[in-house]
């Protein structure tokens, strides 16, 4: 159980949040223009790396806002938290 700092509500227990997979995968504006392969790439392909990963989390039992988290999947260390639409902080 880690602690996540919701960019709106502050530090909270992990149980208040739900994970939403990899961040910064933008839904194509014109899906019909894409080939099957391009669409499949958006739909299915995820990095799932061991190490520092960009993720989406939702403060499901709090303010219900979605936001981004930079987390090291090897030790659960959270390096940064930032709002949707913001650029990841430069390290």
């Amino acid at each position, binding site marked *: 159980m880690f602690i996540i700092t919701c960019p709106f509500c502050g530090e909270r227990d992990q149980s208040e949040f739900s994970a939403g997979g990899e961040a910064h995968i933008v839904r194509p504006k014109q899906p019909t223009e894409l080939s099957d392969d391009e*669409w499949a790439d958006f739909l299915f392909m995820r990095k799932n790396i061991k190490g520092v990963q960009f993720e989406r989390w939702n403060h499901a039992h709090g303010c219900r806002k979605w936001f981004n988290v930079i987390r090291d999947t090897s030790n659960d260390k959270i390096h940064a938290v930032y709002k*949707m639409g913001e650029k990841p902080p430069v390290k």
Partner: protein
Amino acid sequence: MSENFRSLETKFLDKTNRISFKYNGKKYYGYKGDTLASALLSNGVHLIGRSFKYHRPRGIMTCGSEEPNAIVQIGGSGSFTEPNVRATEQEIYEGLEASSQNCWPSVEFDVGGINNFISPVIPAGFYYKTFMWPKKLWYSLYEPAIRLSAGLGKSPTQPDPELYDHNHLHCDVLVVGGGISGIIAASISSDNGNNTVLIEDKNSLGGSTIFQDDENFKINDEKSSVWLNNQIKKIKNKKNLTIKYRTSLAAYHSYNYLLARENLTDHKSLNERSNKLRQRLWKIRAKKVILATGAIERPLIFNNNDRPGVMLASSVKKYIDYFGVRCGNKNIIFTNNDSAYETAISLNKKGINVSIVDIRNNSSSMLVKNAKDAGIKIYWNHTVVNTKGYRRIKSIEIMKMSEDGTNVIGSKLNLVCDNLSISGGWTPMVHLFTQSGGKLKFRDSDQVFIPNTATSDQISIGSCNGDFELDDIIKNTISDCKNFLSLSSTDFDLLKVNCSKQKESKNIWLLPNDKPLGKTKPFLDFQNDSTAKDIKLAMREGFRSIEHVKRYTTTGMGTDQGKLANMHALGIISETAGVKMGSLGTTTFRPPYTPLTFGTIVGRNVGTFFDITRKTPMHDWHESHKAKFENVGQWKRAWYYPKENESMYQAVQRESKAARESAGILDASTLGKIDIKGTDASEFLNRVYTNAWSKLGIGKCRYGLMLNEDGMVYDDGVTTRLSENNYLMTTTTGGAANVLSKLEDYLQTEWPELDVWLTSVTDHYATASVCGPNSKNILKKLFPSIEFNDVNFPHMSFKNAELDGINCRIMRISFTGEHSYEINIESKYGKSLWEKCMDAGKEFNITPYGTETMHLLRAEKGFIIVGQDTDGTMTPIDLQMDWIVSKKKYDFIGKRSLYRSDTMREDRKQLVGLLTDNPNEILEEGAQIVLDEKKQPIEMLGHVTSSYFSPNLNKSIALAVVKNGKKLKGQKLLVPMKDKTINVTVSDFIFFDSKNERLNA
């Protein structure tokens, strides 16, 4: 009358409070504050149990949580009994009943003891090797036999009657361990404004220093025990400090999340316990953690080192100096280091006969000098090669060691004793540190693993950090705490510490013997009976990884997790394999540190609180009308309402007929309801549903299907346009929370430009759904001012209404195919609304029906239930719902996926109807469907998703998903069951009123 071994005065027990208890049926006495072990020892009882494999007699070895042997069953004949309790931790209380484990018929005479004599033929891996073949003997012979002899203790057969609960605790600094370093750390931390918690697994603070009576150990010119006692008095009054006794840390997770078990009543007499919590699990979040868990003494590994009466030297010291109990009248100390000399001096001072066997050549410390001065006989450079005595040690044989320590020389010397105190040095308790993800390093000088790098904000101090001498402990504790808490000074900075320093040390993991290893029994894991021989055998058979050797030999796999001798196993492996111990690493230490009872883990989440229950506003009515309930997610939904002796089948048949013939009423309050507002609400619905919404008139309702981005059906429901920019969406009962979260996700991340607001109103409204040909007549009675006709109030429209002055909404929508209305009202009026409907419907025999009838009625109509007829692999096209997928809309969630080559395949599994050739035969939901039973391998075409006997059609009907099903109408298929094969024919999936005439009837 047995001899009393409590000849010594002690200030740590309440001698005015004498307590009686039973052990193996016999009555004994002890004092308040005694552990079961100390009380038994004071009565001269050493033999406690039989070992796991060879059933050798075993006695008390230690005085703490590392105890491998003295584990007992607590509790008498009642429903409360707990196995595997360490006698060294269990405090005695009036009425305590304890008994030995793993022995039959008694601990004194145990039939399993025969295993000891056949031990040469049951080596490590015996079970793996022997019971492999012949295979058929496994069930008939091997497994029953192993089960009979396996396991320690008896598990309770009744539910645990005790109370347990959980609590969260947040603090700035958590100090684990109330020994001298923990007390100093807690003091420093709380003095500097940190909200501090100190937890200690025993009933008092002070660790081993509190009974340190030796003049060599002084702090500020006071005896260390006196100085510490004053510190303890001081910290008890600190306002930032909470001290929790009898609380042991079970687990240390990442982010400084720790679990600790507090024992509240285990030390109290049975009548003081009633209706009180037995244990509490603390879920601790600490900003910083200070581990001061101490060290445990190592045994020495030599032949027959497991007899009752062989004990750790430091424990023997605690029994004398703390409990006032001598563990024998003729004691021998066997050691490789100075600390055991403290035990010798203590014994000597109290006039108890003691001599010392030391594997070292000499030692020049103050302690050793004191021992010599006291006239204690010391056998230098000697090792024990054998011990004798079956139920209690009687004598030992010692021999001189060769210069390099690999052999013994000269003749054997026989020494009589009734206690052998062994000391092989100290092992820092790094279990919690490694549980948290910390990495260890190996210190060659004294062969210990100590904390190296931590993953969270924590430090280890005192002997768990590898400091074993009083001056180092105090000096390093203070400086480490200052760094850790960013302090420039503390009240302890000027402490003056004196102590005896050890100068000579020698470590031999497996002591030499005059006999070959195969003829000796040097035990490593006392609980699981693995010996040095077993480790070497595993090595010969090719095992190298410490994790593999552990599992093959079971070393360290007992309830004590091998706390005592894991290090020796590692040492022997590294010597045999010629690998450095540091590079070998350790086995993984996993939580819990000491066993937890299930009651503590589940807390109050039992019975009513096992799972959360959600109830509708009408729940009480259903309950008082004898409804059976079904769990739908967390909801309790009325399932059916049996009358008198009706079976479920009979009740559902009756309810189903009534709903179609006259009127039925369903509690639909559990459906998810989302209020959607904003100027872009219509556009939003266009994007989330497959069909078009812009042209839906105000006051009209529409059914919508929601897909995942992969094109698969996700949820469905009716959405009503309440006003220009306000819709009310309904979702499935189980999908409500996920749908809201998914919609919020799209709004917040993909389409933040849309002016749309979502608010969950699921619980705000109660919904009664009235259906059947007489529904209109019932509604007319309830709402006389509304004109109920197809022009004014057509199917798929809604009206605002008032019922006795209370606003409500009426939707004319149908999930049964009947003329039907759903009435939404603020949920506080829900039960009252339901009763009004029942009253108004009385003359029409309005029949309440539950979810089962609802499922049957909609199956007659071929309406899908998301999650029952779909499973995340069905597209709307697969469901033959092409009509609901807009071709005109540019985009909606999942649209692109409907044009992937895979989703466009024509031979996908598709929804069809199935009719059994015998109309009375009801298919089982989930049954597989095949074309040809003889073809091998048999090809599964699909499965039955919904199946009922339809009372309105008087035949069995089913929905199924079948490969290429759309083209198979009229095809004969087979549903093979366990004892028969059912013949079925693929049909249309709308079985009833396919022209929808009843909607407007």
